[in-house]
């Protein structure tokens, strides 16, 4: 299998959580074990555009319990004999091999996954920022030679790009360091908040400069956050910014 694999460097590794559960997109060649029509294939693929049940395969390093996964979209692309090319948008942790097997069962003739390429992992796609390992090796060596920091931007993206799909809460400078110490974010520290946050949603706490402070769990929904004057808005789950980046502003009574 080939395709989009976000590789987190050093401190950025703290954000893998945000990526593991983000959506994925694949392009897949499924090999049918019998002959059937394009119409029939389309019918069956549409049935799978729903929440499905899967048990992780033997070789997976997760608990092998039955679990549900959402298939956001399946698009038939083309067919050549018994080879079927389709695109699928799904929740992270969906086994496409098992999906092909189940589609084969539903079709009656059986099928297996022949080839797979991931075209999206969360916010990362086969866009300008995707690079091969060779490209990375080449330009890294160039950077070491030329010492031009702009070269690094060809191969490395800021950690914040990995958080593009998470809802954001922007906070005052004075609220940042407390969160860096693991304190919960409280209402007075909030400047703006994205719509659609629900209790328990994973959110990214951000500074006005666009720096990621922490991954957190919302304690309450967007509407409440906007109306609150005090109280906990979100609990930090993974602090990303080093303590002391912003000054300590813990005054009793205020933020």
């Amino acid at each position, binding site marked *: 299998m080939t395709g989009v694999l976000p590789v987190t*460097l050093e401190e950025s590794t703290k954000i893998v959580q945000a990526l593991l559960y983000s959506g994925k997109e694949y392009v897949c060649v499924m090999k049918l074990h019998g002959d059937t029509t394009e119409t029939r294939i389309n019918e069956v693929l549409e049935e799978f555009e729903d929440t499905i049940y899967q048990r992780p395969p033997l070789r997976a390093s997760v608990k092998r319990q039955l679990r549900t996964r959402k298939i956001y979209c399946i698009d038939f692309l083309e067919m050549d004999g018994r080879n079927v090319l389709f695109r699928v948008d799904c929740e992270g942790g969906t086994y496409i091999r098992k999906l092909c097997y189940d589609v084969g069962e539903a079709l009656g003739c059986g099928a297996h996954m022949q080839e797979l390429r991931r075209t999206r992992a969360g916010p990362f796609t086969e866009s300008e920022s995707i690079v091969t390992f060779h490209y990375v090796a080449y330009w890294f060596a160039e950077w070491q030679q030329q010492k031009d920091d702009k070269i690094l931007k060809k191969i490395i993206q800021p950690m914040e790009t990995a958080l593009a799909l998470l809802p954001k809460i922007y906070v005052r400078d004075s609220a940042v360091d407390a969160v860096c110490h693991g304190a919960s974010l409280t209402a007075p520290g909030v400047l703006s908040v994205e719509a659609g946050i629900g209790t328990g949603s994973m959110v990214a706490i951000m500074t006005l400069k666009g720096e990621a402070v922490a991954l957190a769990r919302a304690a309450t929904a967007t509407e409440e956050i906007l109306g609150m004057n005090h109280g906990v808005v979100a609990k930090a789950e993974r602090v990303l910014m080093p303590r002391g980046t912003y000054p300590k502003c813990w005054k009793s009574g205020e933020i």
Partner: protein
Amino acid sequence: MPRSIAPWEIERKLLVKAEDKTSPRYGCRPEERNAEAHIRYGVINLDKPAGPTSHEVAAWVKRLLGLQQVGHGGTLGA
């Protein structure tokens, strides 16, 4: 059943609760990080080749760049 919306299809409006400025004395915009910080808080959007496991490819990157640790955003089989 209406189909679920993929995470990248969600449009989120930013709702302002209060206004404030950020001091230039603290912190740093991601775009303005120096090389060392850019790497330390960086992610590579890598096009994984066929053959090695995701873990192996991440290990290559770690060795190439001389890093202490790397991670990856979801296993892609060999």
